[in-house]
């Protein structure tokens, strides 16, 4: 079906309007196709906008990079401080443990090694035990005398 037949049922105004629209489009298109072409220079506004966009982008990128670097540096510093503190704490703990160990060792040594007087007493006691003899009955009165004289 022809396109004009489509419009057969339409009012005269619609038909005319569509025909004029078609003619207008043809005229515009022909004129645009036959116009002299020149390489359009980029407008200053466009260049300015592009430059501003680039500058803004660069600033933002620099800001992000600086922030990231600073954050990394700060984190590294914090980690270093924390490591130093941990090391110091460990050293202190080690020293305390050593001190405690030494004290314990001293105490143990003190327990196991008796004093010189105790040693002497023990020695005398053992000698007494070794040399003492039960006194025979016949010498009982003499032994009592010795005890008495010792008591006086």
């Amino acid at each position, binding site marked *: *079906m022809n*396109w004009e037949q*489509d*419009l057969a049922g*339409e*009012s005269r*105004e*619609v038909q*005319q*309007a*569509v025909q*004029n*629209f*078609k*003619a*207008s*489009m*043809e*005229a*515009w*298109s*022909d*004129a*645009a*196709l036959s116009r002299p072409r020149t390489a*359009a220079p980029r407008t200053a506004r466009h260049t300015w906008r592009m430059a501003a966009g680039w500058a803004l982008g660069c600033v933002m990128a620099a800001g992000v990079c600086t922030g990231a670097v600073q954050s990394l540096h700060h984190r590294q510093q914090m980690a270093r401080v924390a490591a130093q503190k941990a090391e110091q704490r460990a050293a202190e703990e080690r020293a305390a443990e050593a001190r405690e160990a030494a004290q314990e060792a001293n105490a143990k040594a003190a327990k196991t090694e008796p004093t010189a007087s105790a040693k002497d007493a023990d020695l005398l006691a053992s000698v007494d035990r070794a040399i003492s003899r039960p006194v025979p009955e016949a010498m009982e009165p003499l032994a009592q005398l010795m005890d008495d004289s010792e008591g006086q």
Partner: protein
Amino acid sequence: MLERKASTKVMAAGTALKPMTAAAAEEIAAQEFARIVETHRPQIFRFLLASLRDVDLAETLTQECFLKAHRNWEGFRGESSAMTWLMRIAINLQKDHWRNRRIQFWRQTRTNSVDLDEASEWLPSGERSAEQQMLAREQVAHVWQAVKGLSERQRTVFLLRYVEEQELKEIAEATGLSEGTVKAHLSRALERVRRELRGTR
């Protein structure tokens, strides 16, 4: 309708078939394509101009359309006319353009599309009185207003039918719609034009 011959041999009268060299086949294909460009460029450009109302953009997309067609020229089997095939490419390019503009809205805040009044200024210089010229300009402006209010598909179908004078079957092939859908779109588009013209009285 242009029919492409895929044969690689030339038959001369009364002679045996001579194999065609690759260079000669390419030369023929290039000439054929150049003829296609020359024949259909104005129509493709006009359709894109009417769709976009932007001369520079229409020119760019016309170039892209033929570039794409040239790349795929080997794959064109002549199942539809070359015009329908080219129009399908142009429609897809136009769709892509609108889609990209929707997605990348920050890239072009300003459009180069001319306004409807400027577009309505174009009229063929015929033997018309000043009054007739003015009336025609008014009518064209109203049709533009109606076209602006159409959906993308309705606009494409309307322009192909009433500006490019394509048959319904060709429009259906170019747009990938059924003929019934094309008719429905046309009917709605005409209704819009009717309303626009009625509303002005």
